[in-house]
């Protein structure tokens, strides 16, 4: 006998753990940026290329997970969190991985040389961006606990604290970005103009990774506010 049981078909698949797994993959992709930049500064392009390949793989994996989750979220699903917010959060998460890969791709393609004196600030800046992404992951990882308590009480305060810390981390990357831009501005006349242009662009995208991480936190806050 085949049973189309009303009770078992009542339960849809929870989007929360796929969303968290997606973010885990995104973070592991972004974290590789540190390795990549270190290799690039050392002009070890073989190693850099290896890291880039791994980042590509992870980015593809995140893409596939994103697509799968989207397909499993029909409109008829009744969830404690808004479907639109959830999907926005997902695409925001996905863009973090995309942009991280873009940074590595751009630097690898041009065999970009970081000007003297900028190496250390650059590593610091990238680390700060990655840190923001990790913090966003930490907040997303609280979603299952939030569901457990039904999105009220102390757990909400706890997550809001995490988001506040995330905002602070993003502020710090903004500050580092300003400093690094200023240093670059002082040297740009001595650099080939095209190289300088692309350097500015890479710095821009590294900042964007932190921005996107912050906006993932912002979306999470929207979910809580409902």
């Amino acid at each position: 006998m085949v049973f189309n049981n009303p009770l078992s078909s009542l339960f849809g698949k929870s989007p929360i753990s796929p969303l968290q797994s997606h973010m885990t993959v995104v973070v592991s992709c972004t974290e590789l940026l540190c390795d990549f930049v270190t290799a690039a500064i050392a002009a070890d392009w073989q190693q850099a290329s290896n890291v880039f390949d791994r980042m590509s793989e992870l980015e593809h994996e995140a893409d596939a997970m994103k697509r799968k989750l989207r397909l499993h979220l029909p409109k008829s699903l009744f969830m404690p969190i808004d479907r639109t917010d959830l999907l926005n959060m997902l695409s925001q998460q996905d863009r973090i991985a995309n942009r991280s890969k873009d940074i590595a791709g751009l630097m690898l393609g041009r065999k970009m040389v970081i000007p003297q004196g900028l190496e250390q600030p650059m590593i610091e800046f990238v680390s700060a961006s990655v840190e923001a992404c990790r913090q966003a992951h930490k907040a997303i990882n609280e979603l299952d606990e939030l569901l457990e308590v039904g999105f009220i009480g102390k757990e909400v305060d706890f997550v809001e604290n995490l988001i506040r810390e995330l905002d602070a981390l993003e502020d710090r990357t903004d500050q580092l970005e300003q400093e690094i831009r200023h240093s670059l501005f002082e040297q740009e006349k001595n650099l080939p103009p095209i190289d300088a242009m692309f350097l500015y662009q890479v710095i821009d995208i590294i900042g964007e990774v932190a921005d996107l991480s912050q906006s993932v936190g912002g979306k999470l806050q929207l979910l809580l506010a409902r």
Partner: protein
Amino acid sequence: MTLFAEYGQILIILACVFGVFMAWGVGANDVANAMGTSVGSRALSVKQAIFIAMIFEFAGAYLAGGEVTETIRKGIIDPAVMAGQPELLVFGMISALLAAGTWLLLASIMGWPVSTTHSIVGAIVGFASVGISASAVDWDKVGSIVASWVVSPLLAGALSYMLFRSVQRLILTQDDPFMRAKKIIPFYMFAVGFLIAMVTMLKGLKHVFKDVGIHLSFGQCTLIALVIGLAVMALGTVLLSRVKPDLEAERVNRFANVERVFAILMVFTACAMAFAHGSNDVANAVGPLAAVVNVVKSGAVEAKSTMPHWILLLGGVGIVLGLATYGFKVMGTVGKKITELTPSRGFAAELGAAATVVLASGTGLPISTTHTLVGAVLGVGLARGIAALNLRIIGTIFMSWLVTLPAGAGLAILFFYFFKGLFS
């Protein structure tokens, strides 16, 4: 009645066979829904669930199944209209059993969601209104039954919503939810014990007490129920004290250990659910059977006849048989699909549904346990307690009503004329 003298034995045997078949269907199919929530949340293994279901379905059927059986037996059809033609009632009830059983089997094979309650009510209304006359049906009663089908999921939803809200406030949002759970949960256990004991004494055992000459006032019943509630609470406290926090599980989810405490509570609510289900759904099978036996034995339709107890017993046996032969399989399937339901939610849904069903059993209203449980789960969902619920199922349930009522009725009419032609 020469017909009953000649064929009485055969008619009773037929009714028994069809009645047990219906009860088997209830046990094989419906019980899985009642217990699936406990299996799905991993509070119980399938084996444990079957064990609990066998005991408490049987207890529910035997101790508190009387009122709904009365409704099915003589509430839907007006006995006064039937007094002159008792054989038609016998043919009708046998047809209704056969029709509902056939329809359930067919629907199960095709994978359509149907309710035993709706099939049998549709079948009885069908044969009575077409085969006899529209005035043979007590339409007021039918109206209130249909209304209860809408009200019961809503009520269960409201109860479960409030139960889950109380769990949030009292336990989940507190500083040490694990310790709070151990402190608060015994009170929910008390409620379970009190509720079941109260309904059993007020409604179910009324007849048994009358037979042995015991009369208990409402106050005495309350007192006994209080004592039973406290006993359940004490048993629960002992079980709860054995739950030690598992630090390994806590690393993955900070509430893993709280859920383990709720899993103990779910054993109790599962008992209540099985009891409630037995008290309401066994009537679908034994109600028509009781009507047949009564009429054949006395040769007339009597409004004041009492029901022999072996009939409820037979229904209980049928349910247990269904469970043992097929129910475990269905339960496993249902349980596997509802793993998203954790014990803290499962308990709220089960208790809300069980309370509603037991209440309906006490008032003699045949309702669908499955639909009530669906309403209860949606109630927990409204309290933002469940990750994803498929709302399309509500439409499916309404569709199954629209199809099941006429299908049960149509088949019953067909069988009714068949039996009428066969025996006369």
